[in-house]
């Protein structure tokens, strides 16, 4: 006798919880044959704003965790993902990837988490300076997280792209609100389950599913978001984001690359993009 499958309800991930969208709306995701795979939450402006509130609340204490601790939490995410590889491969296949491509993407996503876990406590040393000023002062410049980073994840390579964006922002002490791939959103919400079981404090990473057209405006214009990153090639979207970002001088980054599997897709410069430089002076004479 065949057994009836139990399907997962895909919800949002905000503040460490899995709420449905407050709007009660959904959109359907189909496989290549046109069959329904899942109904995803169609996140609203209000969902995004709720995510900003929890991300702001979580930011200071996340940034204040030791770099060893942040590194270990990122490594823990990799461990958890490794253990659930099969599920992610299955979801990617369901969304239309070949088995081989799916396997390779999940492997790369895990390795990318390990890569950025390893940068914790090191990128600061790489990008900080002691500045030999021409007066009797000790002067140094170090990195601090920019704060809240809103991210529009790449449309393709929905897991690897998502991880490639979350990990550097997170290891840099930022909190993140990321809009998942619109057409391939399943792994993003399953990845939230991984985050949820990896000692990541509530609110550090928040994941939304929904329509870019609807949400990008709100992401780029929210006055309590410090930085916005868009992964994609749509020139109109880039223009809109830049215009709206000027309302509170958000730092913007646009990653147009289509392939996130190459070696160039990981570097400490992705972390640096989410950082501020602080310079401190103190006299050396009294």
């Amino acid at each position, binding site marked *: 006798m065949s057994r009836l499958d139990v399907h997962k309800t895909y919800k949002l991930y905000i503040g460490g919880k899995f709420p449905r969208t407050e709007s009660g709306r959904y959109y359907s995701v189909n496989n290549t044959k046109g069959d329904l795979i899942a109904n995803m939450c169609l996140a609203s402006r209000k969902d995004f704003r709720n995510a900003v509130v929890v991300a702001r609340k979580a930011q200071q204490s996340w940034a204040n965790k030791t770099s060893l601790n942040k590194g270990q939490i990122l490594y823990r995410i990799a461990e958890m993902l490794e253990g659930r590889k099969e599920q992610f491969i299955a979801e990617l296949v369901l969304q239309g990837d070949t088995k081989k491509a799916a396997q390779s993407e999940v492997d790369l996503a895990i390795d990318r988490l390990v890569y950025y876990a390893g940068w914790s406590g090191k990128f600061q040393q*790489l990008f900080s300076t002691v500045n030999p000023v021409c007066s009797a002062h000790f002067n140094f410049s170090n990195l601090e997280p920019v704060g809240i980073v809103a991210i529009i994840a790449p449309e393709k390579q929905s897991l690897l792209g998502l991880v490639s964006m979350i990990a550097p922002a997170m290891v840099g002490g930022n909190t993140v609100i990321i809009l998942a791939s619109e057409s391939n959103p399943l792994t993003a919400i399953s990845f939230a389950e991984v985050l949820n079981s990896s000692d990541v404090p509530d609110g550090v990473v928040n994941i939304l599913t929904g329509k870019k057209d609807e949400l990008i405006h709100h992401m780029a214009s929210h006055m309590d978001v*410090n930085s916005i990153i868009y992964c994609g090639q749509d*020139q109109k979207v880039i223009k*809109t984001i830049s215009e709206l970002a*000027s309302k*509170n*001088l958000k730092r913007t980054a646009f990653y147009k690359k289509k392939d996130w599997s190459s070696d160039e897709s990981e570097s400490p*410069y992705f972390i640096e993009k989410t950082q501020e430089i602080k310079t*401190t002076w103190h006299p050396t004479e009294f």
Partner: protein
Amino acid sequence: MHKTIDTNIFKASWTYHEAPESTSHVHVKKQYELFIDGKFTKPVKGNYFNTIDPSNNQTISRVAEAKTEDVDKAVKAARKAFKNWSALTGKERGKYIFRIARLIQERAREFAVIESLDGGKPIRESRDIDIPLAANHFFYYAGWADKLSYAFPNRKVQPIGVAGQIIPWNFPLLMAAWKIAPALATGNTVVLKPAETTPLTALKLAEIINESGLPKGVVNIITGAGETGAAIVNHPDIDKIAFTGSTGVGKYIQNAIAGTAKKLTLELGGKGANIIFEDAAIDQAVEGIVNAIFFNQGHVCCAGSRLFVQESVANLVIQKLKDRMNTLIVGKPLDKNTDIGAINSKKQLKTIENYIKIGLNEGGEIYQPVCDLPKKGNWCAPTLFLNVSQSHRVVQEEIFGPVLAVQTFRTIEEVIEKANNTPYGLSAGVWTQKGSKIFHLTQKLNAGVVWANTFNKFDPSSPFGGYKESGFGREGGLHGLKAYVKFD
């Protein structure tokens, strides 16, 4: 108990004789043209505007106004020059920049006098701070030109192209140096616009650039007001915009270049918190407060314009501050005794006076020492606002003048909260003799530059720039190179 000093008696028994810096050694032409493609060129439309001495409102010189056509000529010259300049070896590029540094040093006195004449700042400041820092900035970045491969680990860098640079009137030559030096070191070419009220030292710099033998078109200096700036921002063949000025204009620029390939760095306004704890060295802190807000007439984006004094020492600090303010000499910029010079322009004086009115209307308690302000020119006495709180406009908004808003606090958590409760994030100051408290504060304050037991210090090797609405990007130091390179 601290006793109030009768500073009027002190003043009466101590007369300062005028010690004016001579202007005899200074060459200012009656009229300046636009510096395009290595030549001083008349503006296409033939318009000129006056640049005046804000201490007496007399005209010093007439300066060409660059229109869209002139901006276009300058950009074309810069584009043409880019090919060879960016292909030159770093070593050779660096040597040109070293030359510029040396030439500024040789003519430092002349530059200092012109800076004070044109901008109103005390000669002591232009002589000891602005001009030497400008020369040092060129000297510092000259050395980077052939060492860029060490600056960005595991990356090869390229110059961006033609940089459009727009600078403010508060530190005219220094801001030109901050913009031009790193741009040249990294192989870019430049179209620079000084502010309309202070164009002269940039035009003198153009003379030096010619004397240095820098290939024509590598640096173009064009004068004009906001319209000229907008023409630079919107020019389609500029690859990078670097702007220092108000947050309002910064937002306009980010919006205007949206969707283009232009890169952007912005150094904008501020409302710096200067925090005095009860365990601070009080006399040093009072000097620090004065330097934080009255340096350069308060025309400083990183000025410590919000003072926070711990309640237990508030009366003492405020009294000592008032006493110190009574001894400040407001007067002729070229007098070496002068502590506070002229307000840069009539327009800025109006802005400041308007904020003083607003402060009074909102119920603030004002303190200004009695001082004899000259009859002619633009002047503002150093000003305190007491009994103000976070909701007052003089506490929230950048005044860009010698006006200090004073608040008190009880706990460290309270002052961190108050200090960070602003859209700006450029600078902050902390005064305490306890080391751990300093580092606790410097970590918690959302500001790009934090001065501990000091204030308003600058150096070519020290990155400067803001958090939040004070802009993005850094100028100075290794980090300042990033604004002018792209990765391969």
